[in-house]
């Protein structure tokens, strides 16, 4: 998980070397936990009656597990295209502030925009947490190829992992499946505090954990939007006040 000293050398290394260094993190705990989640998704897709080609297309094209689960849920319920598109839109609003926060960490002075658009596709929670944690330790020029090596390859591998999950669905006992689903939030919970450097970031995590379930009960459907707005805005306001005072 942590970046060794040798990776922060003074001499300028080629982008390809940084790309491969990003790939080296594909056998770390966050990547493994994500593989297990996509095993779970493959099984879920099969149980829902989705064909394997379509399940693989969802992983590659959408690359956001909550959106994929919402899409399959809609397909199973027989909902129309517009209704499902709206539900997926609501389920993925979080990606915008995540990308806004990540781009300044990733870009160098001369990073072309198209590279940022490509990398935004592989920005989902796992990649985001990984990047927010590891990328600031690297020299600016190395950040885009490093994150590309991790993020693009992670997405590609998980298309295969979805296929494995699809094939072994039914063999996995329900209790093991439950444990698989449990690993993802557990991993996020343990790793997020180390990616949160500022006071406002840390407060936002605490507020989000508390407000999330409350809004889920009182305003189901738009609960995440409210959690983000109320939790994020108040954490930002407190952080700004503290910065002004000290």
């Amino acid at each position, binding site marked *: 998980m942590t970046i060794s000293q040798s990776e922060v050398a003074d001499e300028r290394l080629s982008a390809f070397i940084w790309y491969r260094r990003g790939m080296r993190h594909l056998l770390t705990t966050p990547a493994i936990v994500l593989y297990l989640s996509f095993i779970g998704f493959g099984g879920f897709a099969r149980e829902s009656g989705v064909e394997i080609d379509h399940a693989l297309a969802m992983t590659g094209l959408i690359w*956001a597990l909550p959106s994929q689960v919402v899409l399959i849920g809609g397909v199973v319920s027989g909902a129309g295209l517009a209704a499902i598109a709206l539900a997926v839109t609501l389920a*993925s609003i979080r990606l915008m502030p995540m990308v806004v926060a990540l781009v300044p960490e990733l870009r160098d002075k001369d990073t072309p925009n198209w590279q940022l658009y490509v990398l935004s596709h592989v920005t989902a929670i796992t990649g985001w947490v990984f990047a927010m944690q590891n990328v600031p330790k690297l020299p600016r020029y190395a950040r885009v190829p490093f994150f590309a090596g991790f993020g693009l390859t992670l997405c590609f591998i998980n298309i295969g992992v979805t296929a494995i999950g699809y094939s072994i669905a039914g063999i996995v006992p329900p209790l093991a499946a439950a444990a698989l689903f449990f690993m993802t939030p557990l991993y996020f919970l343990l790793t997020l505090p180390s990616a949160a450097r500022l006071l406002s970031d840390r407060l936002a995590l605490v507020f989000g954990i508390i407000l999330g379930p409350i809004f*889920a009960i009182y305003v189901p459907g738009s609960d995440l939007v409210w*959690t983000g707005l109320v939790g994020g805005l108040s954490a930002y306001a407190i952080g700004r006040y503290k910065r002004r005072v000290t």
Partner: protein
Amino acid sequence: MTFDAIDSFWWPYLFIFLAGMLPTEVWRWLGVAFAGRLRDDSEWILLARAVANALVAGVIARLILFPSGALMEVPVWIRLASVGIALVIYFGFGRNLFLGVFSGAGSLMLLVWTIIGL
């Protein structure tokens, strides 16, 4: 227009593109476009970070308390106890992520197996 409205090989892919990829991707594109206009130390970036962290934390709480699929069958108190065990192991072993995650998932299975007997 439902997922199986048109009987052809391409329709499901078009459906996945229109109903799944586009509504997700649009937020990512907006994020890049928005960040492109901002300076790196802008207050808006700090605000976006706070909102993103709150949203992700909200997702975590929801995945643990209101899960879907097989995890729904596991009682809430077992889920919360397993989170507690994972936290203790994680910090007890010098922030070892692997031990933390797998001890949490392991205690979930063990608790269900010994107490409910699945």
